[in-house]
């Protein structure tokens, strides 16, 4: 036990991770301040406020023991389903999908919360399967059952991006749960082979268009490829050191669309250059490294899987958003955690971090007992 001026409760916090989170949120606040043309309104101040509130929530969650999350996993799942149904009935339409519940200070996107619930439920499920059973079919099909309702409801909104994220996250979690490797390799090959078929049969014309534009954005720089091209212009014109804080033209003259949400990274990169962008990437990598470290340290099977699953949830946000803004993935509406303006994603990420901190606390207690 350490002794010092700071109370033990505060000194025991995972400060390494917290500094990273503060830095990321700070980058978000600066980026949003600049995106608003050098103003705290309408985004920067709200972002800071939400961050403070949700950080409190994360600390609150971190005080619970993992047994509580384990026991309440199904309750959370049921709550998530109810919210998704409410969304379909009462939700607000934005960007062509009915994905949001208007809560006044926050537009809640229940599908985001559902991601956490699904991780908890899956982790609980796999922690209860005896090791031998993991190589049987009975370790697979129930997952399909758990996913059916939430995915069905999310597809009804329709929100293909979140659906994709949940499926990816689930597969990654199954991988971590120790399911046989051949399933993933075989599955990967099968999906690769089926992609053209999916493209031609399942995708709607506007989705097909998005894929085509992803493959060749310059073919249509003013139409649907606009987002991608403008994002690359922002990043590319920033150069190594950027145009300087508050000097971004792509963002200030509104050429960069969604510069406060999905494309905040491009707006920041325009002003802070490659240096600023790589700094953010490194911060994210360190955050994930911490998450995976927590998972590796965890003793219980449930804790391990939850930690890995939640880290991967955060990872997929970051990976897909960054690949999207750099033209490596199609444009799907996925924000950059902690940096983008938007409450739901931040709420989700903070819940993830709260639970991760709880696991981390358990790990440390274990360590100090030994």
């Amino acid at each position, binding site marked *: 036990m350490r002794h010092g001026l700071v109370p033990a409760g505060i000194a025991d916090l995972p400060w390494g991770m917290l500094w990273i989170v503060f830095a990321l949120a700070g980058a978000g606040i600066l980026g949003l301040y600049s995106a608003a043309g050098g103003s705290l309104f309408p985004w920067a101040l709200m972002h800071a406020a939400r961050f403070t509130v949700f950080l409190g929530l994360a600390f609150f969650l971190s005080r619970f023991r993992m047994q509580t999350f384990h026991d309440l996993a199904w309750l959370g799942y049921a709550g998530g389903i109810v919210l998704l149904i409410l969304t379909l009935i009462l939700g607000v339409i934005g960007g062509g999908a009915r994905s949001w519940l208007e809560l006044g200070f926050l537009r809640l996107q229940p599908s985001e919360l559902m991601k956490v619930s699904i991780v908890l439920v899956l982790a609980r499920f796999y922690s209860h399967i005896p090791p031998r059973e993991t190589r049987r079919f009975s370790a697979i099909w129930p997952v399909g059952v758990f996913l059916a309702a939430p995915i069905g409801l999310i597809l009804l909104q329709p929100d293909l991006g979140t659906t994709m994220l949940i499926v990816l996250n689930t597969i990654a979690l199954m991988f971590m749960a120790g399911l046989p490797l051949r399933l993933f390799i075989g599955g990967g090959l099968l999906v690769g082979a089926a992609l053209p078929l999916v493209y031609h049969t399942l995708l709607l014309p506007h989705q097909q268009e998005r894929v085509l534009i992803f493959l060749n954005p310059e073919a249509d720089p003013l139409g649907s490829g606009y987002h991608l091209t403008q994002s690359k212009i922002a990043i590319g014109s920033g150069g190594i050191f950027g145009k300087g804080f508050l000097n971004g033209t792509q963002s200030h003259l*509104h050429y960069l669309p969604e510069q406060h949400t999905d494309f905040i990274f491009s707006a920041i990169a325009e002003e802070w250059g490659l240096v600023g*962008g790589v700094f953010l990437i490194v911060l994210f*990598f360190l955050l994930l490294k911490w998450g995976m470290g927590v998972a590796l340290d965890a003793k219980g099977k449930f804790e391990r899987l939850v930690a890995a699953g939640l880290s991967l949830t955060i990872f997929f946000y970051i990976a897909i958003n960054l690949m999207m803004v750099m033209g490596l993935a199609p444009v799907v509406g996925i924000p950059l955690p902690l940096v983008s303006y938007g409450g739901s994603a931040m709420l989700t990420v903070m819940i993830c971090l709260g639970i991760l901190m709880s696991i981390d606390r358990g790990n440390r207690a274990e360590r100090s007992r030994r």
Partner: protein
Amino acid sequence: MNRRYKPIVTENNQVYTFTRRALVVGGLQGVLATGLAARMGWIAIHENERWKLQSESNRVQMRLIPPRRGWLVDRAGQPIAINRSDFRVDLIPDRLKEPDRILAELVRLLDLPPDEVERIKEELSHAAGYQPVPVAENLPFEKYAAITVRLPELPGVAPLRAFSRFYPDGAAVAHLVGYVGTPNQEEYKKENKLPLLITPGFKIGKEGLEKTMEPRLRGKPGAQRVEVTAGGTLVRELSTLQDVSGSPLALTVDAGLQTFAARRLGEESGSVVVLDCLTGDILALASMPAYDPNNFTDGISQNEWKMLAQDERHPLINKALNGLYPPGSTFKPMVAMALQQAGIDPTARINCPGGFQLGNRFFRCLGRHGSMNMHTAIAKSCNTYFYAMGRRAGIDIISAMGKRLGFGQKFDLPVVSQNYGTMPSAPWKKARFEKGKKLVERPDWTESDTLNTAIGQGFVIVNPLQLAVMVGRVASGLDIQPHIVRAKRPPPAPLPFAKEHFETVRSGMWEVVNGAGTAGRSRLELPGIEMGGKTGTAQVRRITGSQRGQSGDWKYRDHGLFVCFAPVANPRYACSVVIEHGMGGARAAAPVAKDVLTYLFDKERAMASLTKFEEQWGGTMAERMAARAQRWLAANAKPKPPEGTR
């Protein structure tokens, strides 16, 4: 291998698997992070130049500055068409999202009259998306500012500080210079979609000299580099390349004379052409009534257009070039030239018993003139003399002389159109009536055709400019060509006719005004300056009974014509005046010609006379035009639905 190897999975090796897989995933995350950083480096360093360029082309937009149009000035450099700096508002249909709301807002802010709203709606429905539709020009700064401050709520509205064309003399120069307007779709396509043509505030010549001299007057557009937002809002100006305005064009016209002539025509429908008979310079080319070309620049409403198109006095037609009239007796100076060319002695006499008997047909004269020679026949306008002598000379020589002096000719002028009429001849008639057998006329030339031609009736039709050219050529003996654009030109060559022939005709024309002639009341009241002239009265329809075109419906009355030159001693100016349905040359046309020529020698005297007339007519030209428009609107405007815009 026959049997598959089944690993025994225990709690322990599951932990091992998890650790291994977590490290793989962590490694993959590291790889991805590196990959993203590399990708970013690629975009930001290797492709930096390209994206920088694109960022600049996003940020900076080139905007065209419409060039200022070249001025039109008169022979002394006095402006006829100039550019006035003004505030204007246009609509860009492409960017217009809610036309009804925005139009209602504009009506409220700018107090647009319902007529204009109608026009804007009409033009909006026809305009291609990129073509600006003018809303209002010459706005006072307060109204302009009212638009600019509300600009964010008015997408598609383009307020602009620009130059608009201004004609200080208004309607007086309308037919001479034409007018300008916003290019339409055809004009835009014709110039290969030149971006300048869809720049708000840019105008092209639509009529008259403005149209024909367009390339010369246009100038070169300037450009402005401005920083703009993605929505097109201007943030700031970066640099400006000034436009090069069109070079001014000097006309041969005397602006003062042109305006005087137009005003002097007063309420009449007609034209005045004044030439410098030594050079052919057109000093005035007035046609009345006319429209105000200033009203056309930002488009005119349907009502305005209808009023002009339906007016029986044809304000949209340039009568000096496109009006065609039988010349009547104003033809006789030319015929007298032809007679002498045919060898007829000008002292030879013909007795006028009140007409001429040709076979069983009697050709009337207006009086019983008794014994006539060429001089007195011109002075008294004796038809009998010209019947008899014309018959003797024959159509061939009359026709040839007519053409030589300008009739039936199209002049090399930068005008949109000129109707050149007919100088009939035997081959002409043959060609004309051979094809149209249905026509009553026989295709072969008859002697009665010659007789009619000799007094300027029958098939002959001429325009007022031709009349002026004819009298100018007779007055100077020079082969003048009419010019409207000022330039250094070689002096015109003399006509290949004997000097005495011209002298005879001119002395006859002197007698018309200054002696015992038909226009004695119109002699110039100027010391030492005399004018020679010839009156003419042209029948609009065949004489029926006693009516003789001297009374009755305005549109069936005879036209009054007068051609003249001055000073007689040393001819300098030639002039033709046509008053449509003026009933007689001496009565309607000659007094106008007298005042116009007076203006050339004594402006004050002429203006004094004009002021008196304008008092009688009820105000200046602009005042009378406005009053007429009011009356027309009151009587004819279609009732407007109540405006739903508040």
